């Protein structure tokens, strides 16, 4: 039978009539119109709905609303301080973590929780984050968490001293007849292509930091 449940969501007192077993996720989404927490599986596996109950990570799809009585629920919508993003949200923007974005509210809430419990998480701690990201932006998630935690990271590279490529020199971008590379429409490649193919990396992410581990470079 429906009961009245009174609790706080993102700092505001709410009262809802709901079956006591109704998962918090559907209370938030269908009764309160709070749609940041996403449905992805309904059984606590994908964790796209991850939110906080009294600051601790929960999956609202498996938490009955009755357990929230008198408690404080925080969803992604309640994380920022007005227009000022929470540091984890800001790190997510800085690292351009999201792709489709669907799992990111849950990812962020999980990361906030992890960093509260363990301000300097290890790679193993990060590996233990179960939140699914079907777009596969895991390296950026890892980098963003490490950046917030101020964890010094390995220098970019493969862990070995630099070593030349095997075999002969790379091609110069032109065939022996002086024509351009493979049959693609478009302009001729720039003259500097030959050297750039093996030249110095000059990408914007060379400085490491946030992008350590996902270094990009124009080779």
């Amino acid at each position, binding site marked *: 039978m429906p009961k009245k449940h009174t609790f706080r969501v993102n700092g505001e007192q709410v009262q809802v009539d709901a079956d006591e077993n109704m998962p918090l996720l559907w209370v938030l989404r269908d009764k309160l119109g709070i749609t940041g927490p996403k449905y992805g599986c309904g059984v606590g596996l994908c964790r796209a709905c991850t939110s906080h109950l009294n600051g601790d990570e929960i999956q609202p799809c498996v938490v009955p609303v009755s357990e929230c009585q008198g408690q404080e629920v925080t969803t992604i919508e309640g994380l920022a301080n007005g227009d000022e993003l929470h540091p984890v949200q800001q790190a997510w923007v800085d690292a351009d973590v999201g792709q489709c974005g669907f799992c990111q509210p849950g990812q962020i809430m999980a990361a906030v929780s992890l960093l509260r419990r363990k301000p300097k998480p290890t790679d193993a701690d990060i590996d233990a984050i179960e939140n699914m990201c079907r777009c*596969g932006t895991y390296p950026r998630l890892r980098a963003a968490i490490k950046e917030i935690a101020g964890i010094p990271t390995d220098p970019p590279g493969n862990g070995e001293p630099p070593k030349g490529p095997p075999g002969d020199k790379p091609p110069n971008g032109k065939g022996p007849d002086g024509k351009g590379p493979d049959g693609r429409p478009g302009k001729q490649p720039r003259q500097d292509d030959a050297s750039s193919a093996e030249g110095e990396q000059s990408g914007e992410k060379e400085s490491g930091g946030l992008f350590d*581990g996902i270094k990009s470079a*124009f080779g």
Partner: protein
Amino acid sequence: MAEPEPAAQDKGRGLRRRKFLTFLVAAPTLTVAGRFGFDALTEASAVPSLPSLEEVADLGEVIRLASMPTTHLMVLEVTEDTRVRFELPRVEVGQGISTSIAMVLAEEMDARLDDVDVELADSRPALHFNQITAASTTMRVLWDPVRRMAADARARLVNAAAKQWDLPAERLTTNDSAVHAPDGRTLSYGELSAAAREESGNGEPKPASEYTVVGTPVTRTDARDVVTGKARYAMDLNIEGALPTVVARPPTINGTVGAVDDAKARAMPGVVAVTEIPTGVAVSAETFYDAIRAKDALEISWNPGPIDNVSDSDIRKKLKNASHPLAAPKLRGRHLDASFDFAFVNHAPMEVESAVASVPGDGTAEVWMPSQTPIWAQGAIATELGLSRDAVAVHVTRAGGSFGRRLFADVGLEAARVSQAIGRPVKLMRTREDDMKHGRMRPAYHQKIRASYTKGEVLSFEHRVTGVGLDFDHGLGEALTSTLAQTVEGGASQYYFTASQSMPYHVGIVNHTLQEVRLDIPTSSFRSVFSGTVRAAEEVIMDELAERMGKDPLEFRRQVAKADSGKAVLTKVAEVAGWGRKLPPGHALGVGYHSEYRSHAACVVEINATDKANPRVTKAFIAADVGQVVNPKGLEAQLMGATMDGIATILQAGVHIDNGAVRESSYGDYHWTKQGDSPTRFEVHLIRTDWEPGGAGELALPAAAGAVANAYARATGTRPRSFPINH
């Protein structure tokens, strides 16, 4: 309830459309590939292979040609408050096209990126084939028309300012969404918008050397919405009165409803309606909780589905039996024969398939859904409802991932049927279990390869691909069959195969064939489509050929790669990954290379397979040449995601079919890549060239899949033949 509007075509636009300058520019320009063929052989030890259809005129080129006649119908608007608004006739599924298109517009208009709004266009049948998001073609197809459109818009704004100031247009400059006179006077684009409407002007797109936006790393324009939870997907829309709806579905694939006893369900709290539809029994209720509970209380006897007696082993047998024999002639060398099996793969996007529909009974319908082919969806829904196509509006919403899953209109059709039946708007959502057990999948494949070789060179490469039929009965299939595919026996699927499959190496005589076995299992293209399996298998064989010929696998690829760009990305990836370095037992590096979409990617991964059942790719390096890069950050994200897909499909994620039912039900038993399976080091190195943008969204998957399989093989001393390896 959405308010009724007179013209379906303008639905969803009526409210925000204030009449300002609307450019309808960018005349279609037909450009045909300037150069065909391949690089002359520079290495002695390779037998040349003829160019494939893919190299001459690939799928993307066909889609570009099909899109060309209507590119002038795309709409770019400059509002009085200096917003540059573009209706993108594509769907944003996370691939970053909204950001990339905004960058191209900002670049060519000299507008501030923050002033550019890229919105997803409603279905517009007038666009014909220019509203399909598929085959990594968005930037390839739209690059030229969008920058021409923007350059024209800028020219008209400049001409309007020139007239106002009585100055020659050549003396005026533009930046920050404004036109500037030499004396310092400035007019914003908003101030000029109305006057520019009367102007003509043909702008020339900038040379790449003048780019200040294109080619620079830009954070997604929706990043803030995403991190604050404001990004809205179909189920987040506030369509008044839309009832949460779920569907009870049969226990086996394509089973049908027998008898229904819904008395208990109807009596449950919140339930508004129970509706039988062809795919099951829908329950509409006040909340999804109510709907799901009542769905579970339905008593339904199900009729069997068409494949209830079929399991994985039967499917493998069917494919094997249907597979044409290898027929490569016994040339002067030796043979390497191998056969591969690939399991069904579920796309499993984070956002389950969902749609909102409003069919109020006044002869119109509105559907909100993420769709890769909205015009086709509009037609399919209209037919289903018995309405004229123009009476149906499809509003394209952002997708929580796709990977090929949004090509069809399955849930849109279901939502429309239910809404029509009950006369109320509905928001219909598949549960994850629905999505796993009844969602479309990448078909299962059996593939045979025979390569003949001598001590130093490959003489022939024969590849027989046999798969469960891939459903192309959607908008892209329609586009293909309406353009060139009718010339290929077997229709869209055969055409797609032929126009996308190409061996990027000189390996003598190459012969690829596709055979499909009809089986009543829902399928849909999966990221990289055929290449995800075909090229992965070929990359495994490339390693084994190298081994037999006593060559280093990466060096062997470099020797026989057709394209200089291919050699370059292989060289680069070898350098950054430290190819050849010594690793402890159970660890190994593996390489893969792929060329498609007029782009090239080489991947090296390092694997720890000391526990064969739980291997971990610990590092991944990609070198890519995709021509002109629009947004390096977005490109990196695409290469990253496709690498994770390569890891999942090769090592751990596949669907089982048991007596006509999908065994897996959620992410707990469908083991897609998670953080703990992903490499802790991921590097992308871009080789910068000025070719027009190639496709990049699917490019890395075959290269990564090959690299992962080869690394596993080297680490474990096995020859992987069945994928995923740990099925």
